[in-house]
Every structure is written in C-alpha cells, then in structure tokens.
C-alpha cells in the first residue's frame, strides 16, 4: 500500500451525451507539489477532478497512477485518494465520530477513539459537537469534519474542489496551511478554486482549463511558489 508519487493524465477526454466536458487533456502530477486547477465555471475542472478520482470514466485517454515505476490500479488507487469537495461527504444522521469510524472501517484504517479525537483536534472541531448529528453543524464545522474525513486515511493524492467556499478568511488561511503541510510531507495536492489568495505562496504548478481544453500548464521548477499576483495574471491572461 505504497503512496502514489506520480499521476499521468494522458489525452483524457469526456463527453456527456452531446456535451463535451473535456478535450484531450494531458497533465502530470508529482509528489510534494500543489497544483492549482483554474478556469471559468463550466471549463471542465470538476470533470477532470472526477476522472482523476476514478469516479468518472473518460471517453478517451487514460489516467495512470504510479508508485516509483509500478502502476497502481483499482481499489489500491482509491485507498490513496482523499477528496474534499463542496459537499461534506458525511452522513448528516451520524455524529462526527461515527462518520470517521465508518470511513476508517471502509478504508481499513485503524480507528481507535484517541486517533479520531486527535484528528478532530487537529482540524479544530469543537469537542462538544463531536457527539451530535452532523446535520446540526454549521458550514464551517462541516468543512472541518470533511477535512478530517479526507485526512483520516492519510491520502497521498489529495483532491480539493472549491474547498474554501463558505469559509471565513481565518478558516481559509488555516486550511491553506494544512494543505501546505501535506504538500511538504510529500502528498500530491490538486486544488480547484477561485480563491487565489488562499493558495498563493504554496502552489508550484498551475493548469488552466478553458471550454474543456488545457490552455496553460506551468511549473515553478523549484523557484518557490506562485504569488497571488502571478496567479491572478495567469488566470486573466488564459482563462477566457
């Protein structure tokens, strides 16, 4: 169960009936890197994330997951993926602790009470709320639970779809820090977002989609990360 260190997206296309969501997108994701996937609404960012997370079958092309030189397939890939989306992916009728216990069971991850409590501390979920049903949580609390859920399985490929929406400035910055730490620890992080400020200073790889096509892919190649102005500039120049 080794961590993924490269994901190769090769000429991936996706059609939904008559609608073309993606057209021949090729991209490589590397360990220890944070990729910002940018573009207007409807450009195909969520679809691309869906393909990478194995939840959407590409109409053309393929995604290859590698650990070293070995290909990883099937359930082993899914074990390494963590997803943080706009929806919390948690059951409203269960409490935070119960949700995490369920996830641990599904992923085969040991889940004693201390480990779960420690994780919930790390994301900052109020201890008094942990026993309540998740549908009583505020948006911010739900996001924390969702983050805990994503981190519980120690994913090597972390996919985030608009994770900063609904968070206040403090929450967004805190999340940004968490992501930076994960990237430093060697994970592959992909963020789809419009909130360039939250990812500035941490992103070293930018990919911009427009109408399903990849119009720009750029890396800083060790020269640090993109600043807020860099990102804004790239976005305005290429996204439309």
């Amino acid at each position, binding site marked *: 169960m080794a961590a993924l260190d490269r994901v190769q997206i090769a000429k991936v296309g996706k059609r*939904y009936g008559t609608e073309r969501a993606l057209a021949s997108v090729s991209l490589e994701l590397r360990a220890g890197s944070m990729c910002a996937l940018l573009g207007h609404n409807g450009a195909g960012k969520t679809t691309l994330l*869906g393909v990478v*997370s*194995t*939840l*959407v*079958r590409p109409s053309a092309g393929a995604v290859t997951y590698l650990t070293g030189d070995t290909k990883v397939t099937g*359930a*082993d890939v*899914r*074990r390494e*993926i963590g*997803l943080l*989306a706009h*929806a*919390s*992916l*948690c*059951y*409203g*009728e*269960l409490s935070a602790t119960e949700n995490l216990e*369920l*996830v641990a*069971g*599904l*992923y*085969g991850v040991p889940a004693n009470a201390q480990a779960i409590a420690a994780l919930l501390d790390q994301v900052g979920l109020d201890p008094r709320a942990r026993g309540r049903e998740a549908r009583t949580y505020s948006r911010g609390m739900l996001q924390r639970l969702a983050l805990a*859920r994503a981190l519980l399985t120690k994913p090597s490929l972390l996919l985030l779809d608009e994770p900063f929406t609904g968070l206040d400035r403090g929450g967004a910055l805190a999340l940004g820090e968490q992501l930076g730490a994960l990237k430093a620890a060697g994970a592959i992080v992909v963020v789809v977002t419009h909130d360039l400020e939250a990812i500035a200073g941490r992103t070293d790889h930018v990919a911009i989609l427009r109408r399903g096509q990849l119009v720009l892919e750029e890396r800083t190649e060790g020269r640090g990360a993109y600043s807020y102005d860099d990102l804004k500039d790239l976005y305005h120049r290429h996204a439309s």
Partner: protein
Amino acid sequence: MLRHAFRIAWKDLRIEVRSKEIFATMAFFGALLAVIYTFAFPRDDAAVRGAVAGMLWVAIAFTGTIALGRAFDRERENDTMRALLLSPVPRLSVFLGKAMAMAVLILAVAVICTPLLALWLNAPLFAYPGELALAIVLGVVGIAVVGSVFAATLLKVRSRDVLLPVILYPLLVPLFVAGTKATASLVALHPNLDAAHYWIGFLGIYDAAFLVLSLWVFESLVIE
C-alpha cells in the same frame, strides 16, 4: 466483499432506525392505500378474495419505489454516494449493502401493511403464512435489487424522481404478477398450493437472474 456490504447495510439501517423517517411515512402510506382499497371495492367475500392479492402487491410496489427514491436521496444530500464509490470498498459491496438495507426496509413496511389489509378487508391472507412470507420476501428482494441498481444510476440524473418508477415498473411486472398470482392462489376459496409453489419458484429464479445481472452491470451503470 460481503463484510463491507454488511457494514454499509448496517450503516443505512442504523440511520433509518434513528430517524425512522422512511419507515414511518411508508407504513402510513401503505395503511392509507389499504383504506382507499376498502372504499374502492365492494365488501362481498368473493370480490375481496379476488382483489386482495393485487392490492397487497400494488401497495408493496408503491411503497417500495418511494422508499427507494427517498433512501437514495439521502445519499445525494451530502454526496455520500460519491464517498462510498470513492472508497477502496469494492463497488459491488456498495450495491449489495444498499440492496440489503432496502430489502429490510421495504420488508418492514410490508410486514405492517399485510396484516392491516387482512384485517380491514377481512381477507384470509394468513391461510398459508409460510408461503405468503416466502412470496413477500422474494418479491421484496427483487424490488430491492433492481430498484437499487436504478436508484443509484439515477442519483445524479435529471428528472430522477419521475424516471425511477418509469424504469422500474415495466421491468418489475413479472415480479408483481408472480407475487399476485402466488398470493391469489393462497387466498382463493380452493387454495391451489401447486400454483403458489410455481409462482414462488418463478420469483426465486427472477431474483437470482436479476441479482446476477445487477452484479454484472452495476459498476458500468453507476460510474459516469
């Protein structure tokens, strides 16, 4: 794979036991249907004997389909179906788990509605309780299996509320007919146990065939 399926089924049932939303509303709906039937049909014994089998299975059909829709709607609320499919659990386990939970839920509703129908219509539904139970269990399993495939497939599809019955009812007709004929054979003035056994066997084969088919195509249908 089965272990994960049980885990998922248990999770669903635990949620339902807590909220009781689907069970309570569907049991009530089934009871209301029974009441409406009593007004729709004349009270004489012969007419009732002829009709009660059909009434029972129509009630199971309606409550079952609505329960399916509502149960899978829950997985839509926080996109938890996506979470299940994303996990390393085999996708067939997700299907089996949901189907098992649905079968238990719909069966629970049927267990409430059947005695009510027998009571209010004064019909000898329990003349052969073993056969009746078997017929209902097999029927409910069939609905749960086929229904779970399509309810999961339709999760993110437009018009899903109205399309689920449109898809399910034509496909489930053999099941409903078999169930009705089995029940009718048990309730008739001169019960025909051979016929009942034939139709129960039919239900069993139907369930087996569609279970195998569902296992084969579930992942293909549900992954976009």
